[in-house]
């Protein structure tokens, strides 16, 4: 069993080995290999349809891979539902469309996971929730419902909701692309704070400014493969592959 692998300092928190995925007959991800160290911050970019979302959604099994291995914090993702739930509790995810629970207040959104998954006492969960709401500068909205908040505020709540589970890793799937320009900054600021505190992050985004200032590693995906990865300096100034060059010339 791979469940209790040693967790020494160099053991990657996420390890993907030879992973393939198909949607029906469509080979969407091909031979993905990736190791993410604790506290590493990775930005993933690439053209639309290149499989960025699919790849990070495989990491918490929102999508199922068909070949290869994905090991998160020592737990391999298999069909074992217990393993899947363990991994999901360790991995936070922030979606493009926030996906807050509209029938619950903001603070209830934040305490739902801790109370039911982590079995945290309600009061303690609420205190933690308020702490994270302070952190994303939105504590005064705690008793409102998601529908009463702006997009930027909702996305910050969504980030806080993930943080309340004390995840080891945070996945972001285009967290700012559904937002109006003036709200993008407030969300990015929160993400930058998070990065500075040492959170392990995988971020799919087109915000290249964010990539340059925060990422340890930038990764370019095309047609379901990781084409190129490098530190931001070399990635932007000295891309190796034609496809990367073309992509960068289009978005910068």
């Amino acid at each position: 069993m791979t469940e209790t692998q040693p967790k020494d300092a160099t053991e990657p928190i996420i390890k993907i080995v030879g992973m393939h995925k198909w949607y029906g007959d469509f080979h969407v991800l091909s031979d993905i290999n990736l190791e993410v160290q604790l506290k590493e911050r990775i930005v993933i970019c690439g053209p639309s349809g290149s499989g960025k979302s699919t790849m990070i959604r495989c990491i918490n099994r929102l999508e199922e891979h068909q070949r290869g291995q994905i090991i998160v914090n020592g737990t391999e993702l298999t069909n074992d539902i217990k393993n899947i739930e363990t991994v999901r509790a360790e991995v936070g995810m922030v979606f493009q469309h926030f996906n807050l629970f509209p029938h619950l207040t903001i603070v209830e959104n934040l305490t739902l996971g801790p109370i039911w998954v982590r079995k945290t006492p309600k009061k303690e969960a609420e205190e933690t929730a308020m702490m994270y709401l302070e952190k994303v500068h939105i504590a005064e909205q705690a008793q409102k419902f998601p529908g009463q908040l702006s997009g930027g505020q909702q996305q910050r709540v969504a980030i806080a909701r993930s943080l309340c589970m004390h995840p080891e890793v945070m996945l972001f799937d285009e967290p700012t692309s559904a937002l109006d320009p003036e709200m993008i900054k407030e969300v990015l600021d929160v993400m930058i704070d998070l990065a500075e505190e040492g959170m392990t992050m995988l971020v799919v985004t087109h915000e290249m400014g964010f990539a340059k200032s925060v990422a340890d590693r930038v990764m370019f995906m095309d047609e379901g493969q990781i084409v190129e990865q490098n530190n931001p300096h070399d990635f932007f100034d000295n891309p190796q592959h034609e496809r990367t060059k073309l992509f960068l010339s289009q978005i910068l």
Partner: protein
Amino acid sequence: MSVPEQATREYLDAPIRKIGALAWLKENLFNNWYNSLLTVLTLLALCYVVPPFFKWAFVDSLWNTSAEACRDIEGACWSIVPNNIKFIILGFFPEGQEWRPILAMILLLSLVIYSKEWTRWNKYLGWLWVAGLIVMGTLMYGGVFGMPVVETAQWSGLPLTMMLSFFGMVAAYPLGVLLALGRRSKMPAIKTLCVVYIEMIRGVPLISLLFMSSIMFPLFLPDGMTIDKVLRAQVAIILFTAAYIAEVVRGGLQAMPRGQYEASDSLGLNFRQTMRLVILPQALKIVIPPTVGILLSAFKDTSLVVIIALYDVLKTTKVTLSNPKWTGYSTEAYIFLAVLYFICCYAMSSYSRRLEKDLHTGH
């Protein structure tokens, strides 16, 4: 974030809306030529219908007299109701024991009214209901504390209607939700079972289900074994209503965006938690209006049990009318029944509207 500068622009009061009866009339009833025409026509029709009805129902009518007194009047003979109220409401419940079904009905109504506030729904209320139902059952059936046994065959009138419809709705709702979940299940056996069940039930009228339960079903039972007739009718009503609820709830489940499932999955909630805490509360709320529609028709459909010789409140009224003394006054009796049904249905639908409003969270 910087604090916005103190606003310097002027804030005006919202314009005052025109009030007063004339302005209201002009705005709402006579705002253009066809609305004016409709208003006039409606008024004419009302003038034609309302005064004669009013005269019949209230001026020329008798309220609490003998049947003989009614022979000589033009108006309504409401006397049929007070004179026969005991039989219409309680049917064949034995003489001297009438307090039992009345107490049971009062108990049921008070529990329903107390449970109206959804903020009161908790474990204790659940136990209160269990206790209440046991007491009601005991009151109706008897056999303890010196209360003589009253077989279910003698249960009739309003208590029977209330029982069939209340348990019909309360049991059909969760069953319907389970069927809807089953129909969306990834397990082929469960899914097929639910689809077949739902489609079969929806393919036959309630009357035929009631017939089956009262005539065909006993044929399959081993000799000497019987299942209570009222219970069989009750089960038929529950099974029938549940199939319809299931389809409505399935619609609500389909309306849930995938993001809601993904968000709860990514928090590590398991399937049951996801359903219970995230999906069902939203899906069931969306389908409150059609669900109430189904519950209302289930309530009214309980009167179909007459065809298997159960005496619900409609049947006891009919029996009253077959008494030669009262034969001519069916209009009055049926109006009384209609009002009774209307009160119940109206209470349910206005309650559902309030529940919808309470649960609205601005999205």
